[in-house]
């Protein structure tokens, strides 16, 4: 398995722990962590845990299932940086309650999604005759 894909999955597990911890802290002491904690918890779990897990596993299995190499490993590397950086910036935005920062992070995370979609679409595209 490519080290970048392993790192995607490892990052997913770390985000799951962070998101879970944040949820517990919020339940126990709602005012302890500043900012919009429910949004941080929700995005750490969905964007951090679930999406990163899908990125890591998807980049590994989808080229194999389609019988081709990944269209671009470099796009995958850029996607890894953008996805993680975007999530951190979004979390920072919610921590300091600054919506433009959240928007910048969101744009980066969306950029990672675009790169993933593009990379996978160009990997699994079908060249064969119709109906084959």
């Amino acid at each position: 398995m490519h080290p970048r894909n392993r790192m995607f999955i490892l990052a997913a597990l770390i985000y799951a722990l962070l998101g879970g911890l944040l949820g517990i802290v919020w339940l126990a002491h709602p005012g302890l962590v500043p900012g919009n904690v429910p949004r941080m918890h929700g995005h750490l779990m969905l964007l951090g845990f679930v999406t990163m897990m899908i990125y890591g596993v998807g980049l590994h299995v989808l080229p194999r299932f389609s019988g081709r190499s990944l269209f671009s490993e470099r796009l995958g590397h850029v996607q890894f940086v953008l996805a993680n950086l975007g999530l951190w910036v979004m979390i920072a935005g919610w921590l300091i309650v600054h919506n433009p920062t959240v928007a910048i992070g969101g744009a980066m995370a969306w950029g990672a999604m675009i790169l993933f979609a593009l990379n996978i679409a160009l990997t699994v595209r079908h060249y064969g005759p119709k109906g084959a």
Partner: protein
Amino acid sequence: MKVELLVSEWCASCHDAERIWREVAEKKQIDFAVVDMGQPEGRQLATRLRIRSIPAVVVDGELKHIGLLDRTAATALVAEAPERTQKAARHVGLGLSASSRASVLGAMIWLLVAGAALPLGGFFLDGAARPAALHGFTLGFLLLLIMGLGEHMLPRFTGHPIAGGWLWAWTPQILVHLAVLGMGFGWLLGVPMLTAVGALAAFVALLLFTLRIAPLLLRASV
């Protein structure tokens, strides 16, 4: 001693071969890997050793046998390997293990339960039902599905065995069920302590799952 079993999803006897070799790997100190012909690694191995039939057994890079072996014959093939002392690691092959099946089935049950929120107005319901429905879907369905498929696929993708047994394979998924129940009823009945206990159970489940999976990811893949 490294033993590679070359198999394919469509080959019926490969499932039996994998079961027999998994039993042997539990007794003998061998580095066992199931290599799928459908993946590039499998095709590369078959090309290199000119293998035209499966299941095929490759020991330390050399083709040793083609076809299905019984347990005695398979053990004899790795007679030089010492007896295994540590039995916690489990090698994963084509078939889903009992814990993976239970996790996936559990995910399907929570999908049905949490999905009941959709005809009632969607996952973003008003009041206490909102977090209950959302966590039923995310924890109950998504997390259990990731746990079940993760423990099946990641050892295969990385080529490393995964820790098994009650603590690692079963406790996390049992905790997830308790967490969804505790958090859901805590919110619906207005008992914050129940929600907190459920949240704690979910965190311990995530921690155990992370500690189980992380060793596979931190080592270079075989």
